[in-house]
């Protein structure tokens, strides 16, 4: 007899395969058809090769960004759900994306004088601010972290920052408001590898944390006290989960904006496939989430070509009904 965990490994491998296929195939899909030989031709100089530029400058960074953002949001969703012991939690429940959005709004409205980093850096700063506030509130009275206070702080922060965002939009002009609204809908057209490279270290640190958290999160699902009596250092696990998942979410949102539904659809679907063991759910969700968002982005840029739909709309159109179905069929 094999351990239950080992039995789930083939599915995790299948999800990995799906991700690889998606990332490799997606740059070939688009409103303009590319000639395979032209793309990889070594005779035509790159500066003249339109097909190669479409592939390597426009589409490939986009596919990689989608994979990064989708995988990260899905994994962060899993960890937040484990931390809050609630399968309905999302990466945005605790206010991280509200902070990131506020940072982006401020940069778009007031920051035209800044030339470096700009919106991405500001949104990361906003995310960290939100995380700091929620953590300070939740850790104030207890030795560990109170999940109730965390939730309340997150909800309050979401509301408060949303009000601030509205205020910032009010004082901005037409173009800035449009840009801000567009950012909120999610945009993966990075057009360069820079945003991905900047986000990668942050995401790497977060995922190192996730690897360590996988098994303790299993034990935490029976309750903090039960986990403690089984040997889990619950305060450390809670802090680790909170910061790792918030870091991951902040990095993902700073690259592509607050794309919704990935952080909740994917963990749910994956649990249906592999069960509840976080050591399987985390990697499977990461790969599945990456593949999912790459597919959504490919859809977003082809469905009404040459105009593009914001990818957040695609995930919402898929995610909304799915979510409703979940709530209806849930016991």
């Amino acid at each position: 007899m094999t351990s239950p965990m080992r039995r789930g490994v083939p599915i995790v491998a299948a999800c990995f395969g799906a991700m690889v296929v998606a990332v490799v195939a997606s740059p070939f899909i688009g409103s303009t058809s590319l000639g395979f030989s032209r793309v990889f031709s070594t005779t035509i100089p790159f500066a003249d090769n339109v097909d190669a530029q479409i592939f390597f400058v426009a589409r490939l960074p986009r596919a990689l960004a989608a994979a990064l953002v989708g995988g990260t949001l899905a994994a962060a969703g899993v960890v937040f759900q484990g931390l809050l012991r609630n399968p309905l939690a999302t990466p945005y429940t605790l206010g991280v994306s509200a902070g990131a959005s506020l940072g982006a709004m401020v940069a778009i409205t007031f920051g035209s004088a800044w030339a470096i980093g700009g919106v991405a850096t500001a949104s990361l700063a906003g995310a960290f601010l939100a995380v700091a506030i929620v953590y300070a509130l939740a850790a104030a009275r207890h030795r560990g972290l109170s999940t109730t206070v965390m939730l309340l702080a997150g909800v309050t922060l979401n509301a408060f920052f949303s009000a601030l965002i509205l205020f910032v939009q009010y004082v901005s002009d037409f173009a800035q408001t449009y840009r801000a609204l567009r950012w909120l809908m999610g945009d993966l057209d990075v057009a360069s590898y820079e945003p991905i490279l900047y986000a990668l270290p942050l995401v790497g640190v977060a995922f190192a944390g996730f690897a360590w958290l996988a098994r303790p999160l299993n034990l935490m699902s029976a309750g903090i006290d039960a986990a403690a009596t089984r040997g889990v250092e619950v305060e450390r696990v809670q802090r680790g989960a909170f910061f790792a998942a918030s870091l991951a979410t902040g990095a993902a949102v700073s690259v592509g904006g607050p794309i919704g539904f990935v952080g909740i659809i994917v963990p749910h679907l994956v649990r249906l496939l592999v069960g509840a063991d976080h050591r399987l759910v985390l990697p499977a969700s990461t790969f599945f989430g990456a593949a999912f968002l790459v597919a959504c982005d490919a859809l977003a840029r082809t469905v009404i070509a040459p105009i593009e739909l914001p990818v957040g709309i695609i995930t919402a159109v898929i995610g909304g009904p799915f979510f409703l179905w979940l709530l209806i069929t849930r016991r």
Partner: protein
Amino acid sequence: MAINHATVVGPKVRGLFLAFVLVVGVNLAGRTLEPPDLRTLGPSRIISLVPAVTEMLFAIGAGNEVVGVSSYDTFPPEVTSKARVGALIDPDVERILSLKPDLVVVYNSQTELMTRLDRVRIPTFRYEHAGLADITSTIRSLGQRLERGAQAEAVASRIERDLEAIRRSVAGKRRPRIALLFEREPGTLRNIYASGGIGFMHDMLETAGGEDVFADIKRQSVQATAELLLTRAPDIIIEVHTFDRWPEDRIARERAVWKALPSLPAVRSGRIYLLQDERLAIPGPRVAEAVKLLADILHPAGQPDYQANSRAILAGTSPLSKDSVKKRSSAALPRLP
């Protein structure tokens, strides 16, 4: 009957009644007797929430009647002394009412504001952002509304003549393919918004003798992704920066961002223009100047060699460098006779 009542209405009341009749009668007579004066016909206290229409008002000689302008108005210089009443999203209704206007120029989409003004019976002039031809028709209807039909006609015809002159001057020349961008996230090639196949920016491009690469997309604005730009391969990229006033090194850095797409003809030839000029974004009386500006960029006068001329422009040594463009934008409007 009458005799009985006469005793009730005393001499004091009768006197008052007589006075009343006299006052009203003289006033009514006075109105019809006074000579017609163009100044007092038509609205005398005008508020404009639309910068383009503000310029039109000044152009047709109604500048003195303007008592309030929007937060974004900058031209002509006289507007700095006028009261500010908000803009499209945030009109300051109280301020507007306190200025006691008899005409308010509003956007067609400001339905709540229009309802409130209708309720207190303040007339409104409704403006809709549209194509190039609508600029002159708006000027004419404004003129009619203000009883300044003659002045309006003069301004409108002048604009039409100027535009026609530009059309003639570029007729028959090869039309370069242009992307006209009004938004881009600084330092990156993200969040680029271009003028689409509808709207006055598109019309300006076409009048100036250019071919809009996004002409087939029937929207006022198009999100120009990297892929779309690579596919459409514009010969010229013009970025309109209405409010930014960047120093030279910043401009150079922002132009260098486009090197990420080296296959674009615009990048290869260096014909990327960052125009810091508001005239290109305001569909008002200076539109002919804006179109002339575009035409000069697209079809440099007398020099068929695009390469040399563009280098001159970009190096700032040609009369079409950004400094001289800036000077021209702050020039006063031609005064009407």
